[in-house]
């Protein structure tokens, strides 16, 4: 008996969704092993995680709250990866977006909320976008690898933010905590429901997903992004301005990550600090990969990842098993998706035919 691999002509949508689901499931199964080692019952632990993520209105709203930045950073990565622009810098772009929101929204401008909120959002989008446009320009001019530049810029940005919140931007009323002056009330995103942390950033994320989906399928820009991503040489020959298209992608990608930062600062915290994001930018990469770079899939994948984190926190409080289990689930999901993508490209055949001697 031999195992043979045959290339697939085309994987259907059902198979793509199935592989993503299976990847999540296999990851949960694998994580059951360390849960057992920690002395817990996997069934109980996962039961508590589901309860912690979806068990009550409060729990579900926390999951959605957590999913909000992940949708935006996930979209940021998905749109860039589709054009084969490897943006690993969503984390830094998120912080720069948040910084722009604080700079504009903490007293520099006095505007009513209806004008203030869009202004803060546009500023955060442009600032985040610029953070991705710069590495892209460097890549185009000097051939430097954007993976390295964007990854390293994350650390530069976070240290820069630390410097700011310890110095020039430090809130004199913060009792010595390293945090920035707060946003004006006019700049804050309204809550979606009373007494819950969910805010309008979620709507922004959902609309962004819908707009991106429309852009990819229906617009000339989406067509050009696909062509550039799939075959640069043919796109260039056909007259599609490859560099300009890449810059547009960079602006959109960085901008979306910047919006995630605006959402966190203006929707949740109210001020900027260097612990604003527990790695939303990096998780965005996982979200985008889990979603197979599909904008609508990104929303679902962001919900999954958010539910794992929120549920694990809650489970950890109840059982004493470390909430790092959540990182394990997310990391293993990504690995499983990568393995799964292999099955999207190849068909596995079990060949029982006996070998002719």
């Amino acid at each position, binding site marked *: 008996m031999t195992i*043979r691999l045959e290339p697939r002509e085309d994987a259907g949508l059902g198979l793509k969704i199935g592989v993503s689901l299976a990847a999540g499931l296999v990851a949960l199964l694998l994580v059951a092993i360390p849960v057992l080692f920690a002395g817990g019952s996997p069934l109980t632990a996962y039961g508590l995680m589901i309860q912690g993520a979806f068990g009550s209105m409060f729990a579900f709203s926390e999951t959605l709250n957590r999913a909000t930045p992940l949708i935006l950073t996930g979209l940021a990565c998905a749109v860039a990866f589709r054009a084969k622009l490897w943006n690993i810098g969503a984390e830094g772009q998120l912080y720069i977006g948040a910084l722009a929101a604080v700079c504009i929204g903490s007293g520099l401008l006095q505007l009513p909320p209806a004008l203030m909120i869009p202004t803060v959002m546009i500023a955060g989008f442009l600032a985040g976008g610029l953070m991705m446009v710069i590495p892209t320009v460097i890549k185009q001019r000097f051939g430097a690898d954007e993976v390295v530049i964007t990854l390293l810029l994350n650390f530069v940005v976070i240290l820069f933010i630390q410097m700011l919140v310890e110095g020039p931007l430090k809130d004199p009323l913060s009792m010595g905590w390293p945090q920035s002056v707060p946003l004006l009330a006019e700049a804050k995103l309204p809550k979606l429901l009373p007494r819950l942390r969910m805010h309008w950033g979620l709507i922004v994320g959902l609309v962004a997903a819908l707009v991106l989906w429309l852009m990819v399928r*229906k617009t000339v820009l989406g*067509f050009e992004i*696909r062509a550039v991503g799939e075959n640069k040489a043919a796109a260039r020959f*056909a007259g*599609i301005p490859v560099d300009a298209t890449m810059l547009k992608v960079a602006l959109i990608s960085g901008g979306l990550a910047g919006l995630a930062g605006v959402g966190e600062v203006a929707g949740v915290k109210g001020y900027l600090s260097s612990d604003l994001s527990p790695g939303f930018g990096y998780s965005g990469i996982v979200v985008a990969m889990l979603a197979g770079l599909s904008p609508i899939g990104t929303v679902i994948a962001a919900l999954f990842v958010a539910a794992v984190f929120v549920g694990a926190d809650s489970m950890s409080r109840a059982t004493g098993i470390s909430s790092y289990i959540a990182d394990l689930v997310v990391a293993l999901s990504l690995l499983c998706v990568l393995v799964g993508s292999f099955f999207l490209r190849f068909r596995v055949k079990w060949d029982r035919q006996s070998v*002719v001697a």
Partner: protein
Amino acid sequence: MTDAPVLLSLQNITKRFGALTANDGISLDLHRGEILALLGENGAGKTTLMNILFGHYVQDEGDVRVLGDGGLTALPPGSPGAALKAGIGMVHQHFTLAENLSGLANIRLGTEPLLSFGREGAARAKVQKIIAESGLDVDLDRRVADLTVGEKQRIEILKALYRDAKVLILDEPTAVLTPQEADGLFVVLRRLAANGLGVIFISHKLGEVLAVSHRILVLRGGKKAGELVTADADRRAIADLMVGKAVAAVVRTPASPGDVLLALENVSLHGASGRSLSGVDLKLRAGEVVGLAGVSGNGQSGIAGLISGLAVPTSGTMRLYGETVTRADPRALVANGVARMPEDRQHDGVVGTMSVADNIAIEEVRSAAFSKMGFLDRKAMRERATAAIAGYDVRCQGPDAEARLLSGGNVQKLILARVLERGPRVILANQPTRGLDVGAQAEVHRRILAARDRGAAVLVISEDLDELFALADRFVVVHAGELHDAGPSEGLDRGTIGLMMAGQSHARAEMAS
């Protein structure tokens, strides 16, 4: 020749892919010291048959038998390892070499344990012995990335021989070679056969098959259409066997040149080697085909780049309809009626993962024909694609099929449909039929000549001199970045062009005097 022992025998090989029968009961014998040509159009089943022989595919019926110690024994199906072990070596059309390693390292790759020290000397000696016997001369210590295509192919052949191949299969070996390199390959193959190797030579080019093989097996539609001894074969008869019907030769009527539509005036271009041009003058007139001959890498891609809108002259002037072109902008050229066929159609011509309709529209996606206010007009794109599929006989599942699923000939038809349907006034046809079969070739030639008769100015760049003589009204020859006028094609012969390709720009004048 047929008295020699049989090295390899395929018996009643049948392979089905769903409804398609790619190989239908094909049998063949290969003898020691024989060069057998496997000839057929694209899609005739040549590559499928060789993939079965090499174990990439499992046949539905039939046996592959190879001469071993105990006579002919059947190979286990679907095992490239067993095929290699039995002494079958395959040189694929697309090379399988590690570009960053030396030639010698590539030859040894996969034959030795992971950690092997001090064996290089023995390996080198063995390879050098093979080189001496075969004439496959190549620098073993250079990085493969720095070798020419012909040299890379030699490394591939050496790789097979190093593994003690008894049977050598070459899949379309000349598709990537210049005529000179191809001739060199034929010399090597004859020598290898004389030393006792069995060679299977897959091709769809009649001329080279006649030149190199001892026996010809013609495949058509997955079946064996005929088997003949090369010495007794007649060109016309084989062509008819391949296509299954008589191929009408394309007839070129005398040209009636009109105005100059595109002109290069004292154009120089600085770029990578092989792209550079110096002081080039070229005039393309309405209703005339200019054939550009030259050994690959002498500046053809520079001229193609200029007319494709990928580059502008470093100095000198390029004029389109009398107006100077100042920006490298393919879209502007396309909008002004320039049709461009890329040299590497799979790489530059289509986006494989996008649909046929997308690829038909790609050059004009921003024009009003295919988009409104930044939104794609999918209906218009599909309509154009449906018309193109019907009008140009593009064989595919439909407008939504991915372009990567199309064969090379069908990709070229897609590109023809894309560029000719607009009624272009200037046409650049760069290697328009490279890798195409006889039937598809005639179709492309017919379309190009029809466009000329309609009044288009055409530049054909080709490494196939037969093609240039079939199409061109006038010849120019490029050598070392300089362009030389060879005059009207009437009165020119291959020898004169060949001398000019080699750099003797006054060959024509000398011949005349």
